[in-house]
């Protein structure tokens, strides 16, 4: 049994997103976080101070642990963003705005 079997899901063909450059399949209607979980990926950022890995925690947009850089824009909550074909997710380091430092 898996979740798709349980609800008799018949999704359309998977899309492809890129996680740190690696293709990962995403079912239509899944969030980026769901697609990564389905691929066994649980972490997609490192913390600002300790450099520790983090991924989705609350699953509903409240904890902001699931932040990552998506298509160049940092601090996106992957548990909320629908996966679109070609989306590029990159592991975010810290605040994700390193390019702005002066």
């Amino acid at each position, binding site marked *: 049994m898996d979740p798709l079997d349980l609800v008799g899901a018949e999704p359309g063909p998977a899309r492809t997103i890129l996680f740190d450059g690696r293709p990962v399949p995403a079912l239509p209607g899944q969030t980026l976080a769901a697609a990564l979980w389905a691929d066994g990926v649980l972490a997609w950022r490192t913390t*600002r101070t300790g450099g520790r890995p983090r991924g989705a925690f609350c699953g509903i947009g409240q904890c902001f642990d699931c932040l990552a850089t998506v298509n160049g824009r940092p*601090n996106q909550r992957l548990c909320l963003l629908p996966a679109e074909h070609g989306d590029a997710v990159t592991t975010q380091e810290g*605040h994700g*705005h390193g390019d*702005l*430092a*002066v």
Partner: protein
Amino acid sequence: MLKRTSYDAVVVGAGVVGAACAYYAAKAGLRVAVVDRGPVAGGTTGAGEGNLLVSDKEPGPELDLALLSTTLWRDLAAEFGDRVEYEPKGGLVVATAPAGLDALHGFAAGQLAAGVDAVAVAADDLRELEPHLADGLPGGVLYPQDAQVQPALAAAHLLRASGADRYLGEAVTALRRGPGGAITGVVTERRELAAPAVVNAAGTWGGAVAELAGVRLPVLPRRGFVLVTEPLPRIVRRKVYAADYVADVASGSADLQSSAVVEGTPAGPVLIGASRERVGFDRTLSPEVLHRLAAQAAALFPVLRTVAVQRAYRGFRPYLPDHLPAIGRDARVPGLYQACGHEGAGIGLAPATGLLIARQLVGEKPEFDLSPFRPERFDEEE
């Protein structure tokens, strides 16, 4: 049964001003207690920014006090190190129109004469100081003495270092007076503390504490909002604001004034501050104020348009009608010392206030002229 303990001085208020009073009084050898109805920094100190400014002050008694404080903060920073997030980073005031630049230069010239370090910055050099500044600004003035601390940490560490006994979470409900009217102690919700001297460092609520001694001190609240961005790398090096801010600070108007004051913090977020309104203790969030602050900040630093605001907070500055704090022995009540009403500069002015109060407490005459800050000056007007 009320417990009774005696001290040389009781400080009412555990904000930054009360903490500084306790710190310097204890250093002068006094046995001190600090009483607050809330926790440390639970008043305006926990709702302010930590700018230690000389740049926004015109020549006069407040600037003199600020210059003294600037030196004292430097000494304190040496004692407390990173724990209070002291940053001697300087301030940059920019003009937003050519006419404004002339006015700014005129203002700075007066400050220079009063002992402030001020350096004119040409339009072309602004970006060297602040790479993310907007295009087309006509110029500015750099104030190397401006600095910053984290106010709550500053108050907490000053208080701890003072070694004063802390009575937190209990309000002062009465002041005890002796036969001649002199102060003999304070009554809190839980106990009585005997002391020949009481320092009123109750900030925005200083008027009510003065009233406990039967004297008038017309402290009023002046509301301010601050926006806090998401954590960022250092994108603003100094404290940067538009020259209009100085006019806002000095304004006696009750209406909303705001001008963007933008600064980075060691912790990451950029703070965008300092709207000023006199609306009593109305806590209502004003989207209009937030809008203005954001718009002005984005006009100074367009890069901020790419970040998120995480939080907003508000506080009520303790405000006296002539924009000067009340500092020193209150001639109307023997043993009562006033140390409140610092409006938007209490963090900056706290050490000088504490030091001067301590001098008076031990019976020394401060080397600084406190007469412009006389607590009884508002009675004299009438």
